[in-house]
Each structure stands twice: as C-alpha cells, then as structure tokens.
C-alpha cells in the first residue's frame, strides 16, 4: 500500500482521535482506538513511510498514551489514612535515619548549650554581638511582648514569616540530602549549634520565665519536623553512597519515594508549628503554668503519635 492510500484509509480515524483528545466531547472507545493506532504506527514504521507521517502518528500515540496511562489514585481518602497511620509508619520504617538526624541535631545543640551556659564568651563564636543583643531583648522579661519584636496586631505577619522561614529551612535541609547527605548534615548541625547557643545564653542570663514557655509549644512540632526533614534527606544521601544491589539512579528513585512519605507530613507539622508560634506561643495573656503545661502535653502528643499511631496489620494501608 502506498503512503497516500494508507493516509486516506486511516486519516479520518486519526482526526477523530485528535478531536477527542482536544475536546473529549465525541463518543470514542479509547483503548480500542489506541490499540489500532499503535498497530498503524508500527505498520508505518515497518513500511518506511516518511518521517512526517511517522512523527505525526508518534505524537498522536503519545497523546493517547498520556490518557490511557494517566496515573490516578483509585482509593479515596488516602490522605486521611496517611495522617492516621501512614506518616508515623513511614517515620518508624526510617527509624535509623531519624535517630541519626536526631543525633546530628541534638548533640551539637547540647555541646553549644552547655558550653555557652558555662562560658559567656562562647556565644560570640556563633553570632555577632548585635544578634545576641537582639534576641536577648526579645526574651527580656521586662518587655511586654514576646518572640521577635512585635505588636499584638502583627500575629499574621509573623505567621507569614514563620511559614516562609521555617518551612524553607526544612525544605532545604531535605533537598541538601541529595548531595550525598552532606547538605542535610550541614543544616542539621548548623541549626543545632545555633539553637543550642541561644538556649545556653538565654538560660545563663536568666530569661527563663519568658523563653521556655515561648518555645516549648511550637517546638514540639518545629524541632521534630526539622529532624524528620533531615532524616528524609539522609535517606536520599544514603541511597547514593550505598545503593545496595541497585544502580545508583534506581536506588535514589526508590529512596525518594520513601523520603517523600516523610516530607508530606513534615510539611503539615511545620504549618501547625507556624500557627502555634504566631498565635499561641507569643500570647502574653496566658500564664506561664498554662503554657508550660500545654507545651508538655503537645510534646507528649507528638511522641505518642509517632510511637503508637498506625501500628497493627489493619493499618498496613494502600
């Protein structure tokens, strides 16, 4: 069959399919149309029809292929399952990385915390004197307002700031992991050092009654989330360093599926943390006792959730 005859014979069905792909209003049996189109493409290639025709058919096959193999979630309410069981399960599955990330974050924080508690000069190894002055004035009990300098009308502003700043840090901590884990390690240690120094310094100068009630509430979500983001990043890095029996690219692909299971929940935790930090932690009306009590309850809640939620066969999920 010459090419022109071939095109005349099937041209109409191709146009129909093109119409359907564009508008989707006509009646069409997509799988059948797709299969015969594939057959025609194969024939066209086999008979060495011109590039133009082969390209056109290839394009049409690709567009139809997109429709046929569209990835759709079959199950509804996956996110509900994810929050109630999937997320804590993912954290427990990656426990090695979570503990490693915790150590990378907490150990420098402890060292710098105790160090700057005993040694009043150590803080200046981490920060400039202006920065120290600034955060000391934030938590000075003589101030009426708490946190970064603010009026009562600016809760929303601080919410925006916390979202942009803190979630940005968590995302970077994760993303840095693809550089053989180095980026995640850097951000975890860096934030640990910084946080430890601030804790030590504030405790040493004795602004305990303002600082701890402020940080305890959102800290339950924020600090754990940063550690989880780091753990997800370390998972990526590990897959490149030790890909096991896979090729590195495949190992990275598999690891990133696992890592993303952690990142969705981490994002949710950071949004909660930003809410708490902007609208709850900064409140000056609430007593110190209430804030410490609620903060401790939140820590307990977070720990219980990751330790217990979603255990058992029934929660295996999709």
């Amino acid at each position, binding site marked *: 069959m*010459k*090419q*022109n*005859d071939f*095109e005349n014979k099937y041209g109409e069905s191709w146009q129909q399919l*093109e119409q359907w792909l564009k508008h989707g209003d006509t009646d069409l049996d997509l799988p059948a149309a*797709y*299969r015969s189109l*594939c057959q025609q*493409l*194969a024939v066209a290639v086999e008979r*060495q029809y*011109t*590039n*133009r025709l082969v*390209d*056109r058919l*290839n*394009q049409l*096959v*690709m567009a139809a*292929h*997109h429709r046929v*193999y*569209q*990835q759709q979630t079959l199950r509804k309410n996956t996110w509900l399952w994810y929050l109630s069981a999937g997320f804590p399960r993912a954290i427990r599955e990656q426990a090695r990385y979570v503990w490693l990330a915790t150590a990378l974050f907490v150990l420098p924080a402890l060292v710098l915390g105790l160090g700057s508690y005993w040694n009043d000069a150590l803080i200046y190894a981490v920060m400039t004197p202006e920065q120290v002055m600034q955060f000391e004035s934030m938590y000075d009990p003589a101030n009426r307002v708490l946190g970064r300098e603010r*009026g009562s*009308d*600016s*809760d*929303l*502003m*601080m*919410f*925006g*700031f916390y*979202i*942009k700043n803190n*979630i*940005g840090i968590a*995302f*970077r901590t*994760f*993303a*840095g*992991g*693809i*550089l053989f884990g180095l*980026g995640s390690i850097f951000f975890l240690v860096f934030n640990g050092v910084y946080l430890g120094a601030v804790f030590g310094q504030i405790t040493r100068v004795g602004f305990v009654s303002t600082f701890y009630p402020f940080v305890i509430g959102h800290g339950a979500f924020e600090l754990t989330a940063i550690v989880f983001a780091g753990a997800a990043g370390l998972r*990526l890095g590990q897959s490149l360093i030790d890909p096991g029996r896979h090729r590195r*690219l495949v190992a*990275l*692909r598999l690891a*990133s*599926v696992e890592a*993303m299971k952690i*990142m969705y929940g981490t994002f949710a935790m950071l949004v909660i943390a930003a809410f708490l930090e902007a609208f709850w932690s900064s409140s000056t009306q609430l007593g110190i006792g209430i804030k410490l009590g609620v903060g401790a309850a939140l820590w307990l809640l977070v720990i219980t959730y990751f330790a217990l939620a979603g255990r058992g066969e029934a929660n295996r999920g999709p």
Partner: protein
Amino acid sequence: MLDTAYSIETPEGIDLKAQAAGPVPRILAYAVDVFYRSLILLALGIALAFADRAGMGIWLLCSFLLEWFYPVFFEVVRNGQTPGKKAFGLIVVNDNLTPVSWGASLLRNLLRFADFLPFGYAAGTLSMVLNKNFQRLGDMAAGTLVVYRQAGGQRPELPKVAPLAPPRGLQLQDQLAVISLAERHGELSEARQRELAGLLEPVTGKSGETGLQYLRAVGCWLLGSR
C-alpha cells in the same frame, strides 16, 4: 546516537519518541517564570501595602507559596507546563513519557534547592550537561525529564507535477531520499533544492531545473500519486 532523542517502549510494543530539552531553553524558560513570579509579588506588594502588617504576613505567605509551589501547580494542573515552559514549548513528563503526577512534581521542585547550590543553579546545570537526557538532580530523583512539546504536523502540500514512474532498481534508502526531497519542497530554498538534485545528475542525466522537477515527479509517484 549523538542526539537528544529519547525513546521508550510502551506495553503495546511501540517506541515512543521525544526530544529532551537542553540547558539553554530550560534556563530561558526559568527566567520567564522568575519574571512572572516577581511581577505577581510586586503587584501583591502594592495591593497589600494598605493592609500594613497583616498585609506583610499575607505577602510573605504568598512569596513562600510562589517560591516552592508555583512550578508544582502548573506542572500538574497545566499538563507539565509552567508559563515559562509553555513559552519555549517545553513540557515536564515522567521518564516513561506519561504526564507528571503530584508526587514527582513536588519532589523535583523541592530538590530545586540542591540544584541551585552552590550558586545560580551551578549543580543543576552541571548535572544537566553531564546527563544524557539533560536531567538535573531533582529530575533524576523524581524520574522526570523535560522534553519538547511537538507541534502538530500537517500533511504538506506535494509539488504540483505529474507523477513519473521511478527507474528500476531504486533502493529503499534512495526512494526515501527522493520522497523527502519532494515533501520538503516548501521548506528548502529553490537554489538549495536544485543543488541537491544536481548531486544526482550522473544518475538521472538531467541537470538544473529539469533534474529537480524529475525528482519531484518521482517522489510524488513513490508516495502513491498517479
């Protein structure tokens, strides 16, 4: 082959082909996106200036969303094309050439930060240049790639000549060459076509315009015109 062709085999036994897009169009597309994003932020900044500190909060929130989720939104909802990619005819797809999903798009855009390191997308550009399919780090982890969106090819007008039967013993690849000369008569300049036809003078025995017309006539015949 030393080109940007990317092909995968579908379950139907068909090879799907696409052209992977290199760093230059992707950087340009990114620049366009940055421009749009700054424009949105500027407009928001002006609009929210009246709302004082609350406005500042909303602006920060929007700038966060734009920074991390602007590409994700467009890649998933607008068929793999941010406005910048659309301007350059690029499209993000999974490496089996299916449309990109939320998970993959989120991952490749979260890892954008690693591609940015140490400055100005140095890591991403390096990775693109070294990779056969121009994938940056985020693309490799998410299993995505950026390809050219092909324009719909219309059936070209054949030259208006009376078809002539080809000489005997014309090999398949000779036939293909003659056919594509006939098909591309509108794309190449007349002079170039005469030059190409002139190469076959020893075979056809015709030179210049007559040689070209003869080859076109044979091409039309081979395509099935009578």
